[in-house]
């Protein structure tokens, strides 16, 4: 505790100083939905919101590191897909070897991230183009390997447990999301790596002259992001009992949106996992709330746009 007190300035408190507005806005929105539809506030519903954003959330957490260094990763959609396909096929081939399936899925994801990271960090190509290329390449590879068919996953039960399995009435994927967040927060505020990530995003030249392993750290952020996507792929495969090379189309935008809504600047530097989480929840709350009111799709989209504008206008006023 004393250490926490001492270490506070490492960043935690500054997060709450700078980013307290969005959570407030979020609560306000929840209040409004509750007024219109009281059932919104029911514990099951709130739980189902978190459950629904788990996949996007896990990816957003990883993405936050990349964006904090001033980068971006568009390739997470296909990574999610290919990880799922790997998991499914390995399970099918090895008669349900869980460890191998998860290992393989995360492995292929990580290697994509590593490729992205090395190209961005060491060749110095613009991340948006590199990962756009990866988006296209990985999707293609996934389709070549698995085709567009759905790969049904029949088990083992342990694998299907990952997505839905309830512990104390809470789906395992929710715990997984929570764990990812905690881990990421620790990495961000309690490790040299986390500090390096911030430093590089703030001033790369200075970080270099202060003896930081700039390129290594940068590459690593892409690996983390990809592993996040891989994990999300496993969770989704487990939740829908299927994997397909066509999954996760366009999901990258939702994820990046969550991160940016959270207040992490695309130009790097400022940023925080906790704010990303509130961004993720904002998206989840909007989808859920508007769904509860059974608002037709066209009005939902318009409403989403307006809510985002309103929320961010308010929360950007704070400074």
């Amino acid at each position, binding site marked *: 505790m004393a250490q926490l007190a001492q270490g506070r300035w490492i960043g935690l408190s500054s997060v709450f100083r700078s980013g307290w507005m969005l959570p407030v806005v979020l609560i306000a929105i929840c209040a409004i939905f509750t007024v219109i539809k009281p059932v919104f506030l029911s514990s099951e519903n709130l739980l189902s919101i978190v459950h629904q954003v788990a996949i996007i959330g896990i990816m957003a957490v990883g993405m936050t590191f990349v964006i904090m260094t001033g980068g971006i990763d568009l390739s997470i959609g296909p990574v999610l897909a290919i990880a799922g396909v790997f998991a499914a096929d390995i399970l099918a081939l090895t008669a349900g070897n869980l460890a191998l399936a998860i290992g393989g899925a995360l492995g292929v994801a990580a290697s994509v991230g590593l490729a992205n990271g090395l190209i961005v960090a060491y060749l110095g190509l613009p991340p948006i183009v590199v990962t756009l290329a990866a988006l296209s390449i990985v999707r293609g590879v996934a389709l070549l390997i698995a085709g567009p068919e759905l790969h049904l996953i029949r088990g083992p039960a342990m694998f299907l447990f990952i997505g839905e399995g309830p512990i104390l009435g809470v789906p395992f994927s929710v715990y997984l999301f929570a764990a990812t967040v905690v881990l990421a927060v620790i990495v961000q505020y309690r490790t040299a790596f986390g500090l390096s990530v911030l430093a590089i995003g703030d001033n790369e030249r200075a970080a270099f002259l202060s003896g930081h392993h700039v390129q290594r750290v940068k590459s690593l952020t892409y690996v983390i992001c990809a592993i996040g996507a891989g994990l999300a792929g496993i969770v989704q495969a487990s939740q829908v009992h299927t994997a397909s090379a066509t999954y996760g189309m366009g999901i990258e935008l939702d994820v990046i949106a969550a991160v940016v809504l959270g207040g992490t600047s695309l130009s790097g530097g400022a940023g925080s996992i906790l704010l990303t989480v509130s961004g993720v929840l904002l998206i989840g709350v909007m989808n859920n709330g508007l769904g509860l009111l059974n608002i037709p799709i066209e009005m939902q989209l318009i409403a989403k*746009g307006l809510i*985002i*504008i309103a929320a961010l*206008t308010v929360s950007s006023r704070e400074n």
Partner: protein
Amino acid sequence: MKLLARIPNRELAAVFVSTVATFSFLSATFRTKDNIEDILAGFSHIGLLAIGQAFPILLGGIDLSVGSILALSGMIAFDGFLIFGLPGPLVIPVMLLAATTAGAINGLLIVKCRLQPFIATLATMAAYRGLTYAISGRQIFPQLATQSINDDSLLGFDGNIGPFPYAFFLTVGVAVLAQLVLSFTKFGRDLFTVGGNIEAARLSGINVGQAIVISYAMSGLCAGLAALILVSRMTTSQENLGIGIELSAIAAAIIGGVSLVGGTGNVIGPVIGAFLMGVILIGLSLLGVTTYAQPVLTGAVLLGAVYYDKLAATKRTHRTGTAA
């Protein structure tokens, strides 16, 4: 000679030419007049979107909403022609105006609400798509979904002179015009200033807000023109037109040498970038490359092009660096 050195994105141009050359060599069909015409006709709208995208990116911003704006103005045209039976000379200005306004709204959100461009355009991307669904004549009068627009002034856009479709001329025209504005007008200079150093721009009395709004309006207008081309080609419009097209536009702009940091780039490069992507897609299809292998090769070529451009760029700065 001096001129040769001045050619913008000459590395990219070289990549483009060689790629075309290689495909022409490998595929007899690729080099036919019809195919050239089809590539030009089929990717002009991406070119237009890329030109539009160049303006926000020049200011260090981005416009994610172009796809939705495209659909919106397309749907306006649809309604205008099929529901209200209005003539083209009336409908076309309206759809372009609507697109421009939609773009300007993006700009206003960024200036007045101080939103990050990414967020502002992300929000309107959703909102404009929703609006498109809401006004969709196909939903209101399902029978219209199977009716085609036959308005001469609109379909007129689908013609061609030799292997060059009107759409292509439109794209090139817009590009040239935009480039002239960028390099020979005060407004153009102001844009580069804002993109390069917004504080300096403010202190030298440049109306930064205005510059931003106009840039996003420009992006909107280009989306409108793209819609015009597509609608004239399809003789209809669709609710889900242009979903995900913003990525192609952004990619084309960046391949075309517009820096995301802002302050550097032109609008010729983006057009080349757009057609390069078209050439690759069509070329690979003609070579009989299986559909799922195409994205792999496309990505590879994309990487190659950018890396090569980077090499040339560093070489260039090194040159001037020692010269200065």
